[in-house]
């Protein structure tokens, strides 16, 4: 796109809703989807005299999340008020964390999209807890009727995770979000569903352009309103192109206009200006006098660290070192989540063939899950069945085609692998039988014999098909070898 050397600079602010039963500072339900204003109390309505009390679970989930993204957990953290006047935040301020966040200074490892064999470290500045605001429903038609306010979401716990501006492309952003979601869903800290708003992404992006031997920075744009991973990727791809094109025309740099806000329009596939100049944000933070500081003993942090178990990135490494999988294959399996990892490991163990297990799961199992829209937990072929089936393939008792027949049978009927094999009439054919079958075919097709002797080895292919028709249990590989042996090649 460009005549100049460009570095793309992207930093992300990700809000995830923590999976607590109740809100951050009151005992109302934090569940999504209830009728409007049925999960509210004096605290979340901001009624005079109501006092917040911290939810211990939210603090634990935040620490678990922080540890999993390699943050340190400072010994003391506190709450601050951030002032806003919006009807969906009835107190007139949001309880957040300003100078002493609960998690600080971490990083996330991602696979470099440019080179699947290398790893990039994306710095994380901080992760802090805060309460969510309610929901405003505007009159979209005329814009004149009153705005309706639902305060159910008001006070639900959010963890805001702020990355360093270390991301260099839309593809890296997608990978970062994928990894983050994988970790947080694995730990059951958050559902991370962008559609439901339990994961929200704002991206700060600009370009560093080499020009006349100098480095020029374009104005920083904060991109909002992205409702899926795909939208994030497309919005950033668009924004990178747009910033370069605009700079070529107007030459504006970060000195002319430090920061603007743009929204992503998913239908028109472009970003549009929301706020031209960042209104000098003046949130007038101050420590919330209603809440006490939190002190987390180092021993408690260690306990929580121990409770994390194996994280997706560690599984990814282990599937390569221990199971000999390629990074790509390990990545596909790990990305499916803990249930699929467990399924794979069982199949791999029982079949004694990690690579066959991986390839069957990526092709046959995952395709079927997608076609039937079911999850691995409800899958009809258990890991024990698939493990047993693949063991037979490895032992040479079944060829891949016949194994697929058994797999399809198990998908339709409840039965053991043994029963399926019997029901399909699959039996091992002994080699004398194969010899006889092949000899008969060669006798009937002298032209093929001549072709093979003349060097066209692939000519036996047509006979393998015929053999399979005469005896479906004949192993194609074995037939091929036998034919060539009998021809004397």
């Amino acid at each position, binding site marked *: 796109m460009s005549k100049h050397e460009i570095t793309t600079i992207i930093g992300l602010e990700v809000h995830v809703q923590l999976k607590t039963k109740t809100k951050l500072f009151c005992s109302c339900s934090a569940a999504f989807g209830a009728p409007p*204003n049925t999960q509210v109390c004096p605290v979340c309505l901001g009624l005079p005299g109501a006092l917040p009390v911290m*939810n*211990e679970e939210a603090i634990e989930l935040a620490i678990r999340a922080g540890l999993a993204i390699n943050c340190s957990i400072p010994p003391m953290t506190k709450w601050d008020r951030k002032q806003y006047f*919006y009807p*969906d935040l009835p107190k007139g301020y949001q309880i957040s964390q300003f100078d002493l966040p609960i998690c600080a200074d971490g990083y996330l490892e991602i696979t470099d999209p440019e080179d699947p064999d290398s790893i990039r470290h994306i710095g994380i500045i901080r992760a802090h807890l805060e309460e969510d605001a309610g929901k405003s429903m505007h009159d979209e038609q005329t814009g004149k009727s*009153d705005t309706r306010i639902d*305060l159910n979401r008001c006070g639900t716990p959010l963890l805001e995770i702020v990355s360093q501006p270390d991301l260099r492309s839309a593809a890296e952003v997608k990978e970062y979000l994928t990894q983050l979601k994988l970790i947080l869903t694995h730990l059951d800290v958050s559902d991370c569903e962008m559609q439901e708003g339990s994961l929200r992404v*704002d991206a700060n992006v600009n370009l560093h352009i080499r020009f006349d031997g100098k480095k020029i920075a374009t104005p920083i744009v904060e991109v909002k309103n992205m409702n899926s991973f795909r939208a994030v990727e497309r919005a950033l791809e668009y924004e990178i192109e747009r910033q370069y094109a605009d700079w070529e025309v107007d030459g504006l740099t970060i000195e002319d206009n430090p920061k603007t806000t743009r929204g992503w329009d998913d239908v028109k596939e472009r970003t549009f200006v929301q706020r031209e100049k960042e209104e000098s944000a003046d949130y007038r933070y101050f420590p919330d006098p209603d809440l006490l500081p939190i002190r987390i003993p180092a021993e408690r942090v260690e306990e929580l660290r121990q409770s994390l178990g194996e994280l997706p990135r560690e599984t990814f490494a282990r599937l390569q070192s221990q199971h000999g999988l390629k990074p790509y294959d390990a990545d596909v399996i790990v990305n499916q989540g803990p249930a699929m990892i467990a399924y794979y490991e069982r199949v791999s163990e029982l079949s004694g063939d990690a690579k066959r297990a991986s390839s069957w799961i990526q092709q046959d199992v995952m395709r079927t899950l997608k076609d039937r829209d079911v999850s691995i937990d409800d899958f009809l072929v258990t890991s024990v069945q698939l493990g047993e089936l693949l063991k037979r393939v490895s032992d040479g008792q079944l060829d891949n085609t016949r194994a697929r027949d058994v797999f399809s049978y198990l998908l339709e009927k409840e039965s053991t692998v043994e029963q399926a094999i019997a029901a399909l009439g699959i039996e091992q054919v002994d080699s004398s039988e194969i010899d006889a079958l092949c000899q008969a075919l060669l006798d009937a097709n002298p032209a093929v014999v001549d072709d093979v002797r003349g060097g066209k080895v692939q000519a036996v292919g047509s006979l393998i098909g015929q053999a399979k028709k005469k005896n479906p249990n004949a192993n194609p590989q074995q037939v091929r070898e036998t034919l060539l042996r009998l021809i004397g090649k």
Partner: protein
Amino acid sequence: MSLTADDVRRLALLARLELTDEEVDAIGPQVTKILGFVEQLALLDTEDVEPMTTALDLDNRWRADELVPSLTNEQALQNAPAKDDSCFLVPPVLGTAASKSSH
């Protein structure tokens, strides 16, 4: 430190207070005085003093993540100046705290 009339107007805007010019003139010196009073704290040497986060000698007060019944919808809306069958009503507004809060 002395506050200008513009400083006072900006503070008033942030606090959503509507002030007349006369009020701005009257309040300016008063707020300046308050700031001057508080500024005396800057005279103290706080080099080795741990920042204070609360006047209480307590921390770690929290509750278990257990549901307690909320208000009913009728109770929640009971004192609202404007409402419909399930929501609070406010004059048409631009933007929301939720979209701002991702700062």
